[in-house]
């Protein structure tokens, strides 16, 4: 007992007190358990959503492709006469794959105030497929939405008259246009790659079908987003293709027979991009350079080790539309849009051992970057149109040193979007999205416009330019036009 403290005597009522205390504890426990159950059962105070793969209902595999197609298709002839015209543009970026014409006829330094006359025009299915030209004939792999067919059309360069066409049925839905690529043409063969990755070889003289390869079905190629933009090349009677399939990165197909002459394994599982194979001579070695989704690689183009992988370098761009650009004897400039930017690679070799060093990588706000078109390299400088995420330079035609320093830009009043450009007779031809053609003096130390002309109605005038002699072929989303830019117009 505590001294001086009066504690009531509970002994007589101990049982009742214990019962009361026990009841209180029990009630408290039940209340606590109930509260806990309510708390656990009520869920989070903020809604939680489950985001797992497959919730969008994306189909898998080849189911989305439909059945195999007959690539021989249907041939139609409309005429034979193609008045003789000078000049050729045998594949994407011209015969030397540089998009530069140095030995052509003189071109005008100024255009009539009334504009450039349209010599002829032809309606096309929506897209960006552009022309190849050989022996006075224009070849374009169009898409006919009514017929649902890829259609190789042969037109007379003189007046646009359609001479023949060969069409194979394939479903292509509008997805930023339908057609994409440029044929490769020699005197004997024409090779095309359709938007759904169908490679077809025809006889140039007759339009006869030789062979076809469905890259998706035969090689496990994953069709790029918005269809493929890869343009084929023909070298030494072989079509050089980059299937980027389950096993094959690059291959050569003999045009005469359709047999695969050599192939390069796809050891890293890279995927097909919109980029095209560019032939280069690097450190004395003939090389095919291709930038896939996953990385860029150099493959031997020489007979003794054709198809051998010389070097490779991973690159994780999501979308790659431009093609590699050779800078000097031992460097490669590569760019891609959608936030990726660019990089400069330095190659070195010790016999058959190649090494790749990255000189720099830049985001679009830090250096030359192109989203869709391939930059030009001329007289030690790089030229291109900056992408939408390039800050103040967005859409401007720019000149950079290979080291990454900006030399000049076209200014905020001269933006060109995603349009194509080329260099001929020391003049830049730049087509903007809406079909306005600008002529620049390439010998000037800065942006020096010579002339402008509306040649197309636009929009999306993104198909690459083709120049045969003095005839320039351009297109917007739905129409191709032919104009004469020769010096006689001055």
């Amino acid at each position, binding site marked *: 007992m505590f001294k001086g403290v009066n504690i009531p005597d509970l002994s007589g009522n101990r049982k009742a007190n214990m019962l009361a205390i026990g009841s209180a504890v029990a009630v408290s426990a039940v209340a606590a358990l109930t509260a806990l159950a309510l708390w656990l059962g009520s869920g989070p105070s903020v*809604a939680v*959503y489950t*985001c*797992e*793969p*497959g*919730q*969008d*209902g*994306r*189909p898998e595999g080849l189911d*989305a492709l439909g059945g195999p197609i007959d690539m021989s298709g249907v041939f139609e002839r409309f005429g034979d006469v193609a008045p003789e015209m000078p000049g050729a543009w045998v594949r994407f970026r011209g015969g030397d794959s540089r998009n530069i014409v140095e030995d052509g006829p003189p071109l005008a330094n100024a255009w009539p105030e009334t504009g450039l006359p349209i010599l002829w025009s032809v309606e096309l299915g929506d897209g960006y497929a552009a022309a190849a030209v050989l022996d006075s004939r224009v070849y374009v792999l169009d898409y006919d939405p009514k017929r649902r067919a890829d259609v190789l059309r042969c037109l007379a360069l003189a007046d646009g008259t359609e001479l023949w066409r060969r069409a194979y049925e394939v479903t292509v*839905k509008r*997805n*930023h246009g339908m057609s994409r690529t440029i044929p490769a043409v020699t005197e004997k063969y024409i090779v095309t790659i359709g938007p759904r990755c169908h490679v077809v070889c025809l006889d140039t003289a007759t339009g006869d079908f030789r062979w076809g390869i469905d890259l998706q079905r035969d090689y496990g190629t994953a069709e790029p*987003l*918005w269809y493929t933009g890869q343009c084929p090349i023909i070298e030494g009677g072989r079509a050089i293709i980059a299937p980027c399939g389950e096993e094959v990165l690059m291959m050569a197909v003999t045009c005469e027979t359709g047999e695969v002459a050599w192939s390069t394994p796809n050891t890293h599982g890279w995927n097909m991009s919109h980029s095209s194979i560019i032939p280069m001579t690097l450190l004395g070695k003939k090389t095919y350079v291709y930038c896939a989704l996953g990385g860029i690689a150099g493959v031997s183009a020489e007979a003794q080790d054709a198809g051998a992988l010389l070097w490779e370098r991973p690159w994780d761009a*999501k*979308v790659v539309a431009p093609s590699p650009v050779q800078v000097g004897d031992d460097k490669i400039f590569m760019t891609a*849009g*959608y*936030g990726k930017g660019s990089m400069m690679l330095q190659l070195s070799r010790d016999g058959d051992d190649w090494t790749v060093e990255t000189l720099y990588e830049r985001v679009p706000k830090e250096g030359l970057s192109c989203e869709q078109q391939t930059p030009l390299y001329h007289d030690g400088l790089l030229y291109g149109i900056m992408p*939408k*995420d390039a800050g103040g330079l967005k859409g401007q035609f720019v000149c950079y040193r290979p080291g990454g320093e900006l030399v000049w830009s076209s200014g905020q009043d001269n933006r060109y979007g995603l349009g194509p450009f080329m260099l001929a007779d020391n003049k830049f031809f730049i087509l903007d999205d809406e079909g306005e053609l600008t002529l620049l003096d390439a010998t000037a130390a800065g942006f020096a416009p010579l002339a402008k002309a509306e040649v197309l109605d636009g929009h999306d005038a993104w198909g690459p330019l083709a120049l045969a002699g003095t005839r320039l072929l351009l297109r917007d989303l739905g129409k191709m036009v032919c104009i004469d830019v020769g010096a006689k117009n001055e």
Partner: protein
Amino acid sequence: MSERKKLDRRDFMRGAAAAAFAGATWFAAGSKAEDTVWQLDPNKCTQCGRCSTHCTLNPSAVKCLNQFNICGYCDLCFGYLHPGSRERDTDAENLLCPTAAIERKFIEAPYYEYKIHEERCIGCAKCVEACLVFGNGSFYLQVRQDICVNCNECSIAKACPSEAFSRVPASKPYLYITGDTPPNVVR
């Protein structure tokens, strides 16, 4: 005590006229205020993100819309997918939206529909910026009038660096990027 002044007829008429004028003024001013609401001009918006942090409501009354007739229905949607995403699917780690407010649904190859769940959208404009830079610009912000409490002094308008907020007629409360085109949008 002072003698109470008797109200004569002239004073009464003056008072009545003043009261009528004041009432008419108040009514006119009141009617005018009710006729306008806050809205943001998507062409002035710089996607700064303040719409999500400065609204008196939480979450903000500013929501993203997807203008159907401009959307490319792309598989690779930069407004939907995070720049660092490895796959083009609906996994949480691939999403740009911090609240998973955009629903992606396969329509037919190669098209995908993107729908905004407004109850999840906080108006941060991350998707708007990405779609504008790399896509067609079909995502854009608007003040949802069924949520906005129409404060006299809109705290977002006060914080907006591009002065994109203004009062617009309540009879035409939305500023669609297609001008007068009907609200062909997904919410």
